[in-house]
Protein backbone atom coordinates (compact mmCIF):
# COMPACT_ATOMS: atom_id res chain seq x y z
CA UNK A 1 0.00 0.00 0.00
CA UNK A 2 1.30 3.39 -0.96
CA UNK A 3 -0.29 6.39 0.64
CA UNK A 4 -3.59 6.96 2.37
CA UNK A 5 -6.70 7.35 0.19
CA UNK A 6 -8.36 10.74 0.60
CA UNK A 7 -11.63 8.95 1.42
CA UNK A 8 -10.18 7.51 4.61
CA UNK A 9 -8.99 10.87 5.86
CA UNK A 10 -12.39 12.41 5.09
CA UNK A 11 -14.15 9.51 6.85
CA UNK A 12 -11.98 10.16 9.93
CA UNK A 13 -12.92 13.85 9.80
CA UNK A 14 -16.63 12.91 9.48
CA UNK A 15 -16.44 10.57 12.46
CA UNK A 16 -14.80 13.23 14.63
CA UNK A 17 -17.30 15.85 13.50
CA UNK A 18 -20.26 13.60 14.23
CA UNK A 19 -18.89 12.74 17.66
CA UNK A 20 -18.55 16.43 18.42
CA UNK A 21 -22.10 17.07 17.20
CA UNK A 22 -23.45 14.24 19.35
CA UNK A 23 -21.61 15.62 22.37
CA UNK A 24 -23.01 19.08 21.67
CA UNK A 25 -26.56 17.73 21.63
CA UNK A 26 -26.21 15.34 24.56
CA UNK A 27 -24.48 17.43 27.20
CA UNK A 28 -26.06 20.22 29.22
CA UNK A 29 -22.92 21.31 31.06
CA UNK A 30 -21.41 24.32 29.31
CA UNK A 31 -17.82 23.10 29.72
CA UNK A 32 -18.68 20.00 27.68
CA UNK A 33 -20.58 22.05 25.10
CA UNK A 34 -17.49 24.21 24.51
CA UNK A 35 -15.26 21.12 24.29
CA UNK A 36 -17.60 19.58 21.70
CA UNK A 37 -17.40 22.79 19.66
CA UNK A 38 -13.60 22.51 19.73
CA UNK A 39 -13.84 18.92 18.48
CA UNK A 40 -16.08 19.96 15.60
CA UNK A 41 -13.79 22.82 14.55
CA UNK A 42 -10.81 20.48 14.75
CA UNK A 43 -12.57 17.96 12.49
CA UNK A 44 -13.24 20.70 9.93
CA UNK A 45 -9.54 21.59 10.07
CA UNK A 46 -8.63 17.94 9.50
CA UNK A 47 -10.79 17.90 6.35
CA UNK A 48 -8.97 21.04 5.11
CA UNK A 49 -5.57 19.45 5.72
CA UNK A 50 -6.62 16.22 4.00
CA UNK A 51 -7.81 18.09 0.92
CA UNK A 52 -4.74 20.31 0.83
CA UNK A 53 -2.26 17.46 1.08
CA UNK A 54 -4.15 15.32 -1.45
CA UNK A 55 -3.72 18.01 -4.09
CA UNK A 56 -0.26 18.99 -2.87
CA UNK A 57 -1.27 22.61 -2.29
CA UNK A 58 -0.46 24.76 0.79
CA UNK A 59 -3.95 26.31 0.86
CA UNK A 60 -5.21 23.57 3.17
CA UNK A 61 -2.70 24.44 5.87
CA UNK A 62 -3.40 28.17 5.47
CA UNK A 63 -7.11 27.52 5.95
CA UNK A 64 -6.28 25.40 8.99
CA UNK A 65 -4.45 28.41 10.42
CA UNK A 66 -7.63 30.45 10.03
CA UNK A 67 -9.70 27.68 11.62
CA UNK A 68 -7.35 27.73 14.62
CA UNK A 69 -7.74 31.52 14.84
CA UNK A 70 -11.52 31.12 14.86
CA UNK A 71 -11.31 28.39 17.50
CA UNK A 72 -9.15 30.57 19.75
CA UNK A 73 -11.55 33.51 19.45
CA UNK A 74 -14.55 31.27 20.08
CA UNK A 75 -12.94 29.59 23.09
CA UNK A 76 -11.97 32.86 24.75
CA UNK A 77 -15.44 34.41 24.39
CA UNK A 78 -17.17 31.16 25.35
CA UNK A 79 -15.06 30.76 28.47
CA UNK A 80 -15.74 34.36 29.50
CA UNK A 81 -19.47 33.65 29.16
CA UNK A 82 -18.96 30.46 31.16
CA UNK A 83 -17.37 32.40 34.02
CA UNK A 84 -20.27 34.87 34.03
CA UNK A 85 -22.79 32.00 34.00
CA UNK A 86 -21.09 30.37 36.97
CA UNK A 87 -20.88 33.66 38.86
CA UNK A 88 -24.47 34.81 38.36
CA UNK A 89 -26.44 31.57 38.40
CA UNK A 90 -24.08 29.35 40.43
CA UNK A 91 -24.54 26.57 37.89
CA UNK A 92 -23.10 25.37 34.59
CA UNK A 93 -26.45 24.24 33.19
CA UNK A 94 -27.11 25.95 29.86
CA UNK A 95 -30.86 25.69 30.46
CA UNK A 96 -30.53 28.13 33.37
CA UNK A 97 -30.10 31.00 30.91
CA UNK A 98 -32.73 29.94 28.40
CA UNK A 99 -34.74 33.09 29.11
CA UNK A 100 -32.75 36.09 28.06
CA UNK A 101 -33.75 39.51 29.23
CA UNK A 102 -32.17 42.48 27.53
Amino acid at each position, binding site marked *: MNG*VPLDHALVLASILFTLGLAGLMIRRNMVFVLM*SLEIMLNAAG*LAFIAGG*TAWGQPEGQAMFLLVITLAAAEASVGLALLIQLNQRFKTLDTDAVSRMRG
Partner: protein
Amino acid sequence: MEIAFYLSGLVAVLATLGVISNTNPVHALLYLIVSLIAVALVFFSLGAPFAGALEIIVYAGAIMVLFVFVVMMLNLGEAVVAQERAWLRPRTWLGPALLAGVLLVTLVGTLWRGDIGLVIEGETLTAKAVGTLLFGPWLLIVELAAILLLAALVTASHVGRLRPPEKPPTDRESGARKEAS
Protein backbone atom coordinates in the same frame (compact mmCIF):
# COMPACT_ATOMS: atom_id res chain seq x y z
CA MET B 1 3.15 6.46 7.31
CA GLU B 2 -0.10 4.54 6.68
CA ILE B 3 0.20 2.72 9.99
CA ALA B 4 0.81 6.02 11.78
CA PHE B 5 -2.28 7.50 10.14
CA TYR B 6 -4.63 4.65 11.02
CA LEU B 7 -3.30 4.18 14.56
CA SER B 8 -3.46 7.84 15.48
CA GLY B 9 -6.88 8.13 13.84
CA LEU B 10 -8.09 5.27 16.05
CA VAL B 11 -6.63 6.96 19.12
CA ALA B 12 -8.32 10.24 18.15
CA VAL B 13 -11.73 8.59 17.77
CA LEU B 14 -11.44 6.68 21.06
CA ALA B 15 -10.24 9.75 22.98
CA THR B 16 -13.09 11.82 21.53
CA LEU B 17 -15.55 9.15 22.66
CA GLY B 18 -13.96 9.51 26.10
CA VAL B 19 -14.53 13.28 25.98
CA ILE B 20 -18.23 13.15 25.21
CA SER B 21 -19.03 10.29 27.59
CA ASN B 22 -16.98 11.29 30.63
CA THR B 23 -18.67 12.74 33.69
CA ASN B 24 -15.64 14.45 35.22
CA PRO B 25 -14.74 17.73 33.44
CA VAL B 26 -11.02 17.44 34.19
CA HIS B 27 -10.81 13.88 32.87
CA ALA B 28 -12.73 14.94 29.76
CA LEU B 29 -10.24 17.77 29.23
CA LEU B 30 -7.31 15.38 29.46
CA TYR B 31 -9.02 13.08 26.93
CA LEU B 32 -9.51 16.10 24.67
CA ILE B 33 -5.78 16.89 24.85
CA VAL B 34 -4.98 13.28 23.88
CA SER B 35 -7.43 13.56 20.97
CA LEU B 36 -5.84 16.80 19.75
CA ILE B 37 -2.32 15.36 19.92
CA ALA B 38 -3.53 12.30 17.99
CA VAL B 39 -4.97 14.58 15.29
CA ALA B 40 -1.62 16.40 15.21
CA LEU B 41 0.07 13.03 14.55
CA VAL B 42 -2.42 12.47 11.73
CA PHE B 43 -1.29 15.79 10.25
CA PHE B 44 2.36 14.75 10.51
CA SER B 45 1.61 11.43 8.83
CA LEU B 46 -0.31 13.16 6.02
CA GLY B 47 2.67 15.41 5.31
CA ALA B 48 1.58 18.69 6.88
CA PRO B 49 4.19 19.23 9.62
CA PHE B 50 3.48 22.96 9.96
CA ALA B 51 -0.17 22.32 10.75
CA GLY B 52 0.75 19.52 13.15
CA ALA B 53 3.15 21.76 15.07
CA LEU B 54 0.53 24.51 15.20
CA GLU B 55 -2.05 22.03 16.44
CA ILE B 56 0.20 21.01 19.32
CA ILE B 57 1.35 24.53 20.19
CA VAL B 58 -1.88 26.48 19.78
CA TYR B 59 -4.61 23.91 20.35
CA ALA B 60 -3.16 21.45 22.84
CA GLY B 61 -0.95 24.11 24.37
CA ALA B 62 -2.70 27.45 24.55
CA ILE B 63 -6.43 26.78 24.19
CA MET B 64 -6.45 23.71 26.40
CA VAL B 65 -4.43 25.51 29.10
CA LEU B 66 -7.12 28.22 28.97
CA PHE B 67 -9.76 25.53 29.53
CA VAL B 68 -7.78 24.02 32.40
CA PHE B 69 -7.42 27.41 34.09
CA VAL B 70 -11.13 28.11 33.78
CA VAL B 71 -12.05 24.70 35.17
CA MET B 72 -9.65 25.40 38.05
CA MET B 73 -11.36 28.76 38.68
CA LEU B 74 -14.81 27.13 38.68
CA ASN B 75 -13.73 24.85 41.51
CA LEU B 76 -15.85 21.90 40.38
CA GLY B 77 -16.25 19.09 42.88
CA GLU B 78 -17.98 15.77 43.34
CA ALA B 79 -21.37 17.47 43.06
CA VAL B 80 -20.77 18.23 39.39
CA VAL B 81 -19.79 14.62 38.68
CA ALA B 82 -22.98 13.38 40.36
CA GLN B 83 -25.02 15.95 38.43
CA GLU B 84 -23.47 14.86 35.14
CA ARG B 85 -24.15 11.23 35.96
CA ALA B 86 -27.78 12.10 36.64
CA TRP B 87 -28.07 13.95 33.32
CA LEU B 88 -26.36 11.25 31.29
CA ARG B 89 -29.23 8.77 31.11
CA PRO B 90 -29.90 6.60 28.03
CA ARG B 91 -33.19 8.44 27.68
CA THR B 92 -31.24 11.65 27.20
CA TRP B 93 -28.49 10.56 24.90
CA LEU B 94 -30.19 7.89 22.78
CA GLY B 95 -32.10 10.28 20.50
CA PRO B 96 -29.22 12.66 19.66
CA ALA B 97 -26.79 9.77 19.30
CA LEU B 98 -29.17 8.05 16.87
CA LEU B 99 -29.55 11.22 14.79
CA ALA B 100 -25.79 11.79 14.76
CA GLY B 101 -25.31 8.14 13.71
CA VAL B 102 -27.70 8.56 10.78
CA LEU B 103 -25.81 11.70 9.77
CA LEU B 104 -22.51 9.81 9.93
CA VAL B 105 -23.90 6.96 7.80
CA THR B 106 -25.08 9.49 5.23
CA LEU B 107 -21.69 11.23 5.13
CA VAL B 108 -19.71 8.02 4.85
CA GLY B 109 -22.11 6.62 2.26
CA THR B 110 -21.73 9.74 0.13
CA LEU B 111 -17.95 9.49 0.37
CA TRP B 112 -18.07 5.80 -0.48
CA ARG B 113 -20.15 6.27 -3.64
CA GLY B 114 -18.34 9.43 -4.69
CA ASP B 115 -15.22 7.56 -5.85
CA ILE B 116 -12.74 10.38 -5.33
CA GLY B 117 -9.77 8.25 -6.24
CA LEU B 118 -7.15 10.64 -4.88
CA VAL B 119 -4.36 9.24 -2.75
CA ILE B 120 -2.37 11.28 -0.24
CA GLU B 121 1.22 10.36 -0.97
CA GLY B 122 2.60 12.01 2.13
CA GLU B 123 4.79 14.54 0.38
CA THR B 124 5.83 17.14 2.91
CA LEU B 125 4.43 20.65 2.45
CA THR B 126 6.75 22.87 4.44
CA ALA B 127 6.01 26.10 6.26
CA LYS B 128 7.73 28.04 3.49
CA ALA B 129 4.95 27.43 0.98
CA VAL B 130 2.29 28.26 3.58
CA GLY B 131 4.05 31.48 4.55
CA THR B 132 4.48 32.56 0.93
CA LEU B 133 0.77 32.00 0.40
CA LEU B 134 -0.32 33.72 3.61
CA PHE B 135 1.79 36.84 3.20
CA GLY B 136 1.30 37.09 -0.55
CA PRO B 137 -2.16 36.65 -2.01
CA TRP B 138 -3.90 36.00 1.34
CA LEU B 139 -2.59 39.04 3.18
CA LEU B 140 -6.02 40.61 3.56
CA ILE B 141 -7.38 37.44 5.18
CA VAL B 142 -4.50 37.41 7.66
CA GLU B 143 -5.34 40.98 8.66
CA LEU B 144 -9.01 40.09 8.99
CA ALA B 145 -8.02 37.20 11.27
CA ALA B 146 -5.97 39.65 13.34
CA ILE B 147 -9.01 41.92 13.68
CA LEU B 148 -11.12 38.90 14.70
CA LEU B 149 -8.60 38.07 17.42
CA LEU B 150 -8.59 41.68 18.61
CA ALA B 151 -12.40 41.69 18.76
CA ALA B 152 -12.33 38.41 20.72
CA LEU B 153 -9.80 39.91 23.13
CA VAL B 154 -11.96 42.98 23.77
CA THR B 155 -15.13 40.88 24.12
CA ALA B 156 -13.52 38.40 26.49
CA SER B 157 -12.07 41.10 28.72
CA HIS B 158 -15.44 42.90 28.81
CA VAL B 159 -17.68 39.88 29.33
CA GLY B 160 -15.35 37.98 31.62
CA ARG B 161 -14.76 40.75 34.16
CA LEU B 162 -15.68 39.81 37.70
CA ARG B 163 -18.44 41.74 39.39
CA PRO B 164 -17.09 44.57 41.56
CA PRO B 165 -17.99 44.44 45.23
CA GLU B 166 -21.38 45.96 45.98
CA LYS B 167 -21.26 49.59 46.99
CA PRO B 168 -24.01 52.21 47.15
CA PRO B 169 -23.98 54.16 43.89
CA THR B 170 -23.41 57.87 44.24
CA ASP B 171 -25.50 60.33 42.26
CA ARG B 172 -22.65 61.24 40.02
CA GLU B 173 -21.97 57.62 39.07
CA SER B 174 -25.60 56.78 38.33
CA GLY B 175 -25.91 59.90 36.20
CA ALA B 176 -22.87 58.90 34.21
CA ARG B 177 -24.24 55.40 33.80
CA LYS B 178 -27.54 56.78 32.53
CA GLU B 179 -25.72 58.84 29.97
CA ALA B 180 -23.66 55.90 28.87
CA SER B 181 -26.70 53.69 28.40
